[in-house]
């Protein structure tokens, strides 16, 4: 393990985070929120001290392998959650540190689960920071680092970092250089965010609201600044948000292919078709199911159905209505979609459509193999063979995923809430959605849970965002031992 290299990279990340905190600080200064300014100032001081300490690590070798890549991503995200929580804590806006940690992890991992009971009372600077973490966490803080700081030229180490942070079973580059790949991803990301802000401003949304909402949508996070999430906005704004949530749940490689005018290749993408197909199908079923609730107003029913599906499937977690009060079948569909999640290579969470597709295909093959023991067959995606290793990795992912979910549900159960609450709170955190059902439904909050449950759920959010392995690997002792020849 190349510790010094990891520490040096962490130092770079700290400096980047410090710079990224400045807009929120400025907003607090202009709004005259003295407590928030104080909170940010202390945090920046802490970051400055830490990053100076990191400068003392002078790596002997610049080489990084897969395990350093995983480790640096895992440690960086835990560190980010802790440091990002400091402004909330020092400003006194959220008194309990565990709550601050939960809120920040929920931000960076684009979960959007909140322990706040009165959002509208928070200082604007802190609200901005809370939503900005969504935007950063969506595409990835380390990918952002890769986009702006050239790593040692001509080495593949940056690929390991990108693989560890980007979601999906098969992460590959768009162009030969990791630096340029990261830049392209962020350019598309920024472009779409700006477009959404403009469309919402045209719909008459206040500037601050639209920026915050766009951050929540782009990162597929779901923090709002209104107690009723999106319910208070006009149908036009709800449609804009619903469509953009769906767009941010698509693999960004598709947008790149569209940009370089490879339309056929982009639309041939099997995952994209699965993702959109599943979304439209579920929206239709829910629409039919909730029709009776909106007598004579099919338009509202369609909008609510599509908005909630888009919000849950992309793991955003905005709401236009209290879907907790919906019929049982619709709620079941929503819980199912929580697990599926968005596309690989998007900003969304969940198991990912690509993985579900691979698992389903491999299941079909296994069944065929039972019927015809000698059959030779391979899993294919987009006309190309999926390596058996990738399939195995998806299976291992699923096993680890189930184990973590079951363990977390057990721990949360000790708080004594209903099974529905326990199950969906874990699903909502592990899949980075935010609201679940029952007590933690769209109009509720996580404030009532015990500290232990909050910690477990915080960890679940990190595990879910980084797709299990970067965090799981940190728990393996041999990773931290010196390599023996």
């Amino acid at each position, binding site marked *: 393990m190349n510790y010094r290299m990891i520490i040096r990279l962490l130092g770079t990340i700290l400096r980047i985070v410090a710079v990224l905190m400045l807009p929120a600080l400025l907003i607090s200064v202009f709004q005259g929120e003295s407590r928030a300014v104080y909170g940010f100032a202390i945090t920046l001081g802490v970051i400055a001290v830490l990053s100076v300490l990191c400068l003392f690590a002078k790596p002997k070798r610049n080489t990084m*392998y*897969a395990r350093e890549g995983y480790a640096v991503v895992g440690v960086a995200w835990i560190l980010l959650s802790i440091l990002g929580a400091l402004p909330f804590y020092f400003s006194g806006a959220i008194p309990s540190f565990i709550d601050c940690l939960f809120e920040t992890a929920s931000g960076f991992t684009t979960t959007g689960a909140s322990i706040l009971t009165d959002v509208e009372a928070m200082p604007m600077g802190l609200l901005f920071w809370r939503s900005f973490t969504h935007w950063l966490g969506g595409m990835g803080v380390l990918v952002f680092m890769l986009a702006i700081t050239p*790593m040692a*030229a*001509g*080495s*593949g180490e*940056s*690929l*390991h970092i990108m693989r560890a942070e980007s979601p999906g079973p098969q992460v*590959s*580059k768009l*162009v*030969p*250089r*990791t*630096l*340029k790949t990261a830049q392209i991803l962020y350019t598309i990301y920024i472009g779409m965010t700006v477009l959404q802000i403009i469309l919402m401003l045209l719909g008459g949304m206040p500037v601050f609201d639209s920026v915050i909402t766009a951050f929540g949508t782009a990162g597929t996070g779901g923090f709002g600044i209104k107690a009723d999430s999106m319910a208070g906005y006009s149908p036009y704004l709800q449609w804009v948000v619903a469509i953009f949530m769906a767009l941010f749940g698509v693999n960004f490689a598709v947008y790149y292919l569209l940009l370089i005018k490879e339309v056929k290749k982009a639309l041939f993408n099997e995952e994209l078709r699965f993702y959109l197909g599943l979304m439209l199908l579920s929206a239709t079923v829910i629409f039919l199911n909730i029709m009776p609730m909106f007598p004579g107003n099919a338009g509202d029913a369609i909008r609510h159905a599509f908005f909630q599906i888009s919000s849950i499937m992309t793991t955003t977690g905005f709401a236009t209505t209290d879907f907790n009060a919906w019929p049982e079948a619709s709620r079941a569909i929503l819980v199912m979609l929580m697990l599926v999640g968005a596309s690989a290579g998007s900003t969304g969470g969940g198991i990912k459509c690509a993985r579900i597709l691979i698992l389903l295909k491999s299941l079909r093959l296994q069944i065929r193999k039972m019927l015809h023991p000698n059959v030779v067959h391979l899993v294919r995606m987009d006309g190309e063979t999926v*390596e058996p290793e990738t399939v195995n990795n998806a299976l291992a992912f699923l096993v680890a995923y189930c184990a973590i979910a079951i363990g977390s549900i057990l721990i949360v159960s000790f708080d004594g809430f209903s099974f529905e609450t326990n199950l969906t709170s874990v699903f909502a955190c592990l899949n980075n959605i935010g609201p679940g059902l029952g007590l933690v439904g769209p109009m509720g909050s996580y404030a009532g849970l015990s500290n232990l449950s909050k910690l477990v759920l915080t960890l679940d959010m990190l595990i879910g965002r980084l797709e299990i392995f970067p965090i799981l690997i940190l728990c393996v002792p041999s990773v931290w031992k010196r390599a023996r020849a």
Partner: protein
Amino acid sequence: MKIVVIGDGKVGYTLTEALSKEGHDILVIDNQKDVLERSEELLDVMVLNGNGASVDVQRQADVGASDLMIAVTSADELNLICCMVARKLGCRHTIARIRNPEYAQHLSLLREELGLSMTVNPESSAAWEIFRLLQYPSFLKRDAFAKGRVEIVEIPVAQDGRFDGLQLTDLYKTVKIRVLVCAVERGDEVFIPDGSFVLRGGDKIYVTAPTQDLVALIKSTSLDQVKIRSVMIVGGSRISVYLADMLLEAGIKVKLIDNDIEKCTELCQRLPRASVIHADGASISELNQAGITETDAVVTLTNIDEENLLISMYANHMHVPKVVTKVNRTEYNEIFRDKGIDCVVSPKLITCTDILRYVRAMQNRQGAGVITLHRMVDSKVEALEFRAAASTWYLGVPLMSIPLKKNLLIACITRNGKVLIPRGSDCITAGDSVVVVTTSDRSFRDLNDIFDEAPHFDAQV
């Protein structure tokens, strides 16, 4: 630049690594997944699995929009097809590795039709380099510049020899000819020395000298001067054939050893004037029987590095005057050198340098581009030859008043065929060929890159 490399073997990988370090965007195509994975993980490049000669794969790799396509798969024919396809798709520059002597000889005939910008033949380049080393066995390495008028040669500094403890400013007094030490290798370190540098025993120095003065240089340095009259080549590879041809042409006796009887028969047919011996080159008794003690030089060219090293060590042990070793795995070079194996040739590095020179010249169409490029000391140092153009800065300004970048030396200036080992009072004029020695991490593309800053207006006047 966008470059597509087809074939991720020894040469392909070395090339990809070097080109990627120079800042190019590389896509590597190979039909084997495992080698591609290694490249993807260790280098910042993109990989594509498939047959590089197929139009579909090349379209997917967007070869048509790339600046350069390099085909270095193991099969010549495949490389040629790759180039033809790439040319058809619109790629303007194509380089192919052609190593079968039967094709290589008459390539100039077909170059246009096949759409080739350049062909490389690692084996024949390696043979040529070995041949040049055998011409002047006192040097461990020889690199030619300015159409062969100037050379940079590597000389070991003997313990307690004439150079041990010598300060470079006093060099002229000792050797009595105008030469310049442009790089010094000491242990793991490399220095681009200035006048105050003091040599030590065990150093390897790289000396720039006019080719005509090489004999005088050998005499003045009191190195053992042997004239090679007979050479023993162990291993009957392609390089052996090229090398034997050159040696026989120069009237040097050649003894070829191979342990494969069919190979021996084939060699015998191709090289009627050489004596071919069927023996196991790795067996001491058979080497002795073949006469290793009587020969002036041993060149080990088997396909197995370990065997080459063992035979070379034995030859050193038997005090053969000159031993040249071919090594494919260059990463171990530093370790071999401690064991006395200091004259090493690696075909893949030679090819790689040739292509690097082509790529740098491609990037510089107007200015003073790279004419020759050689890399020394495990590719840590490079010597570049530029042709000064009218656009070159500081023309006519004495060298001592030009702001040059650090760790850099102007080793030689050739003007109208006359070689000049430069002093501070000399200057560069348009049309000069200028040899610059520097560390390899900079990848200069134009002569102007060597200056620390652009000239002020008054400096130009």
